[in-house]
């Protein structure tokens, strides 16, 4: 609400100060910067400080990183997260783009609004709550979709959450909870494509498929890159899904599954905050490097 307070009292005052729109812009950015500093930058600096020191606050170089890399849970966790990312990113890009194109084609019809609402609905649940919903869905004893699980040959919760199934399950949960928002964003981006271009394509004889492939998807490219960067960073930080699953399955599946969980275990089970910080710094670096690559290769910041 701070955004609305800067306002000009009279026309004379307005002339002397910056225009209202610019000043409310500062207020928006300002409050964001405060939050970014308090919950983004400061903790990051704190983590970097921890990552290069020991419990006695002495500088130890890369020794915490070495400790993390030597741990028996480290490589499996990287494998798990990498595999999960493949499933999650591919499904996210393919289905989000596909569904938003579909949504856009249905624009004229009444179902569009209902569908947009439906896509967005799961995202309205808080992260942990939606994972809980899935834990029920995946247990054949209580699931409303039990017939489907039985048809696939799974009789018990233990069979459903077999180690080999986890990357797909986590990707499904993440897609269900997170994709709706992106579909709405992509739909908005599609609406920004000038109707003239689409009209011209139609006159030239382009069908739905060609329009999507030659016009809409290339024009969506920046949005897709933006989504991929954020989804990648979010995906490497996989935590809630395996952590809750591990509690629901009393430790059978999902314990020490992701790097973030390993970091958590280091901090709170092995009482080693420094190694925990080293892992989180690694995650940050990976996220930054991948984002930089994507931005550089896609011309994300090029002016149109």
């Amino acid at each position, binding site marked *: *609400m*701070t955004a*609305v*307070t*800067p*306002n*000009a*009292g009279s026309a004379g*005052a307005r002339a002397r*100060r910056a225009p209202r729109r610019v*000043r409310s812009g*500062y*207020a928006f950015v*300002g*409050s964001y*910067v*405060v939050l970014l*500093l*308090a919950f983004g930058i*400061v903790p990051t600096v*704190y983590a970097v400080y921890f990552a290069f020191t020991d419990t006695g*606050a002495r500088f130890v170089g890369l020794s915490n990183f070495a400790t993390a890399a030597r*741990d*028996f*849970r480290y490589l499996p966790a990287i494998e798990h997260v990498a595999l999960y990312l493949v499933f999650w990113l591919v499904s996210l890009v393919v289905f989000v783009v596909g569904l938003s194109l579909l949504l856009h084609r249905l624009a004229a019809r009444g179902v569009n609004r209902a569908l947009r609402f439906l896509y967005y609905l799961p995202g309205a649940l808080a992260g942990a709550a939606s994972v809980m919903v899935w834990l029920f869905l995946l*247990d*054949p*004893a*209580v699931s409303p979709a039990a017939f489907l699980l039985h048809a696939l040959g799974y*009789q*018990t*919760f*233990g*069979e459903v959450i*077999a*180690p080999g199934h986890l990357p797909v399950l986590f990707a499904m949960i993440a897609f269900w909870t997170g994709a709706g928002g992106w579909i709405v964003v992509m739909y908005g981006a599609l609406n920004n494509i000038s109707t003239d271009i689409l009209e011209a394509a139609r006159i030239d004889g382009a069908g739905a498929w060609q329009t999507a492939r030659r016009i809409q998807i290339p024009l969506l490219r920046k949005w897709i890159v933006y989504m991929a960067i954020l989804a990648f960073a979010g995906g490497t930080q996989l935590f809630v899904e395996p952590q809750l699953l591990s*509690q629901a*399955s*009393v*430790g*059978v*599946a999902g*314990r*020490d599954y992701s790097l973030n969980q390993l970091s958590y275990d280091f*901090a*709170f*089970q*092995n*009482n080693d905050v420094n190694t925990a910080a080293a892992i989180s710094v690694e995650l940050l670096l990976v996220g930054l490097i991948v984002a930089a690559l994507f931005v550089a290769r896609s011309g994300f910041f090029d002016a149109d």
Partner: protein
Amino acid sequence: MKLRINAAVAASPPRPRRGRAALLTAGAVLSLVAAAACGNGSTSTGGSAEKDGFKQAAQSEGALTVWVDSTRLAAAQLYQKQNPGVKMDIVTYDGDSNGSNYLQTKVSLFNRTGSGWPDVVFSSQNNETSWAVQSGFTAPLNKGLIPQGTLDGWATGANAPCTVDGTLYCLRNDLSQTVLWYDATLMKQWGYQVPATWEQYQALGEKVATEHPGYLMGAAGDTFTPEIYLWASKCGANQITGPKAVTVNTTSADCTRMASLLDTLIKNKTMSTSSVFSSDFDKNEAGKVLMMPGPSWYGGALFQGTFKTAKGRIAVAPMPQWSADSAPSVGNVGGGTWLLSAHSAHLKAATAFLTWVTTSDDYQGKVAPGYPAVTAAAKTWLANQASSGYYANDITAPLTAAAGQVWSGWGYGQFSQEAVWAATVTPGMTAGKSIVSMLPAWQTAIANYAQADGYKVTQ
């Protein structure tokens, strides 16, 4: 929304220099955060004194903060009812069950911030001292806080998990010695003898598989499965030999004999691979339990509470033994502990509650679901159980005998044996692998987790 914003704009007075004010605020927030970050948890030491074997915090009035799991909530509430003058703040948490480490996580955060510790905590795990002593959370209890006369009331060895180098750091709530629970009605109806040896147990399992398929001899799908079967079989998976030393050997004959027994019964489907607390077991198998080796709390918590087995059916027999073994041995599943915070500012009230909750007949003897660790309360508890008429036989003799037969070769380390088993063996069991084939992998996993916690591992 738009309308409201416009209205706000129209109504609000002009506020110059907003940008600078925001910057100043940001700066203030930053310096606050930085100050908190650099504080290094320097707790106020004002007024602290060395007494009862530890440095005590300045004592003050105020609510006694008690953390309990949902089962022990009744204990705290009963105390509050009997002592309305004591101000209590009762908090329920998961009780650290299944190795959740909630308490350790929170204490490590409280240690960092220098405040927030509960005064008294119940934990369903009995290995909490392995980290809580080191992190300075638990207060020594036998150095003045609780008189030795009171402490002598505990069953022999009951407080072993709480003792570090001769100092007592927690109090055992209940004993969880394993016995053989069975359905007396079905056994009589089918003309079966209660097995006294594991050999007879396996033979009966093979008989049940052909004569009454679908009925169960036990369950092996829980995180505490190794504590019921392999502990009782004297399998040396968890021999804690020092404060930070463990010997692990899961492939000895003592381990393989029990593992192959389990494999045989899992194969003929008389041994369930589901957790007894899973929705799956409750729905499909709870009504098909012929017998089930398990801890003393199975009677109240599982048969009476969860399965709602009818009155007069469930009976208790001693745990089967290997015919080659001379001395009987049983396993143990948990048996919670109570910890008192060394940071408590209400030590008097905390000690009073701790003493009451562990020793009183009113709670331990009459309300508690598990077999009390204090001998006098256990007598009342057993008499109460007998008079309730729920059980088909007298449970006193087998439970009392088993209390002294828990094999002492299985220790209480910092790493959770339950968590290691759950992650390593259970998924393989679900996928159809034999337990015998997974024993080496189990050993490796135990060694890995022990090493991660700084243990010296001998294999």
